[in-house]
């Protein structure tokens, strides 16, 4: 396919595909495993309730339900384990990149001059594991916002300072 265009020589543009991504804190793996276990437990409760209320006291139904739950749990745990190695962020001069996902892979790029505000959040579980979640808001609605969970506190704080510094700068001059 011929992609050379009259607009601009794209090979001289900064290249997204050559960026080195920084990893999240290794504790993120623990966090996502705990979360997967919680949702697996939740599913166990749902399946149990379904069996009780629909009164499926048949051996094969129960066996099927247990098998289903085991497969689901296995999948959730595997996904939680794998996620870590697929996540990464990179700061460039004018934008921030974030990649994630095992089944659905995504690569998001947000220019600093589009960022409205930055937030560092932590829940009780994250507090325990010394993790922080960085949220970046643009004007493009929730779909275009960026949230990076599983950062070390100092990592998150650095990012927050750096990004809010950058957002401020663009308005100057």
């Amino acid at each position, binding site marked *: 396919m011929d992609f050379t265009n009259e607009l601009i020589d794209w090979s001289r543009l900064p290249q997204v595909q050559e960026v080195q991504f920084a990893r999240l804190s290794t504790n993120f793996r623990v966090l996502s495993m705990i979360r997967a276990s919680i949702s697996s437990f939740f599913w166990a409760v749902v399946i149990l309730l379904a069996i009780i209320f629909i009164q499926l006291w048949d051996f094969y139904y129960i066996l099927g339900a247990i098998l289903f739950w085991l497969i689901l749990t296995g999948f959730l745990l595997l996904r939680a384990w794998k996620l870590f190695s697929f996540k990464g962020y990179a700061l460039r001069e004018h934008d921030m990149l974030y990649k994630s996902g095992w089944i659905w892979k995504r690569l998001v790029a947000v*220019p600093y001059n589009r960022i409205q505000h930055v937030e560092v959040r932590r*829940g009780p579980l994250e507090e325990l594991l010394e993790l922080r979640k960085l949220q970046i808001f643009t004007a493009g*609605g929730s779909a275009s916002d960026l949230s990076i969970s599983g950062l070390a506190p100092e990592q998150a704080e650095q990012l927050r300072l750096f990004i809010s510094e950058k957002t401020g700068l663009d308005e100057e001059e």
Partner: protein
Amino acid sequence: MRKNNTPDIFQTPRRQAQNALIFIVLRTLGRLLSQLWPFLLIMLFSNPDYSSLFYIIITLIFSSVVLITSIISYFRFYYYIKDDKLHIEQGVFRRSQSSVSVARIQNVQLEDNLIHRFFKTVSASVTTAGSSESEFVINSMDRGEAEQLREFVLQRKKSLEQKEEKTEVKEAKSHDFQQLFQLSFSQLFKVGISQNHFRAIGIMMGAVAYLLSQAQEVFRQDIFDWAYTFVGWTNQADYLIIFLLVLILFVLAMMISMITVFFTYYNLRLEISRDQVRLRQGLIRRKEQTAQLRKIQIFDWSTNPIRRMMNFVTVILQQASSTENGGQNTLYIPGCATDHQESLLNSVFKKINLRPSGLQLHPSMVWRYTLFRGLIPAMLAVGASYNLFGYYALFFLLWVPLSYVFNRKLYQSWRVEWDEEHIAIKRGVWNYSVSIMPWYKIQSIEFKQSRFQHRRDLGNLWLYTAGGNLMIPYLELADAYKLQNLILYKAESTKKSWM
């Protein structure tokens, strides 16, 4: 120099005014009441026994935990301005620290109610561009301080805007609207005819089905059985009846959508000034919408064969959402003649000169779409209706080749065009639509790949703006990267404001 301008009082973290506690507690009580009133009713009217006592205790414990949390939240809420940024820290179990650059603040709205007035305080909500999520509320603060805060923010904003105006060519802002076009009665009629009547049919069928099921409830008798015996679907002649019924249905649907069109778009006028468009329409409920040209993010127009025959299109202008226009972000303009559409486009996005980009989608899109929109729904339909129709249910599988042909046409219709300032995507089989967006209006870009797409180095590219999104499916990885690099360059190298 600027830092000295920051009012001293905001430089150290401060809590909200003490009476904010009243608002927090009142709001929490209100929320609790709205959640728990069914329980309260049951408790009031049930006989008091041990089990109801148990529920009462549970409810009380729950409510007091919520209430105490909300009170603690007051003591955990701090705000301050540092390095030209507004910082807000809040949360009890989930702590959060936000920082928003003062330059990004759109507005500081001050409000007071009776309690506020008694304490001489106001509530302040700080809004930034975009979603409602990007709004901070300070429940209560001293009126004088709040005014100082607002003054400070607006002053900063004004100095920035002045800078912007200096950099741009000074244009005298005029609000003299010139009428671009007005829908005449016959055009209104054409718009009505070219509406999507299938939608109206769907609504009618839904209404009829609902009425029938209601009637069945009332008469406690199988009304469908009754209908079958009454109409007697056994004779060959009944096909005529079915045909007539369908015809009547279609005519009715057409009439309904024509009447709706007549009432909503009656006397539609589109006017344009140097920096605004204004749309007025309506017979009984008159509606007037204005949009600032620079706030328009995406210019959409679409057409179908009937409209193409009558030489007009439907234009949709997608504006950046903000609290100012009360959520009315899109201007829907039906019955826009082709040359009007072009002159509108030229005044919204100046100097537009689209050329083919040479970008192509991957042909595997046809098969994947046929799988997800053809085969899987057809299989589900067969499975669901097998008990009802028996082997006739297999007729649903005819949907698969139809869907294949449609998706193939859709694939062939896809075009990506561009020029120095804009990108346009064109696609559609029956409903052909075109979306045009200036490069720099982008907010963020996302490249998404499913497992299948990842194996083949394909993916969908999402372009997010403050007024809607565009998506280009099944791009090859290399092309997606090129486009992403190009768009980022375009967005980052310009000083133009996206709104």
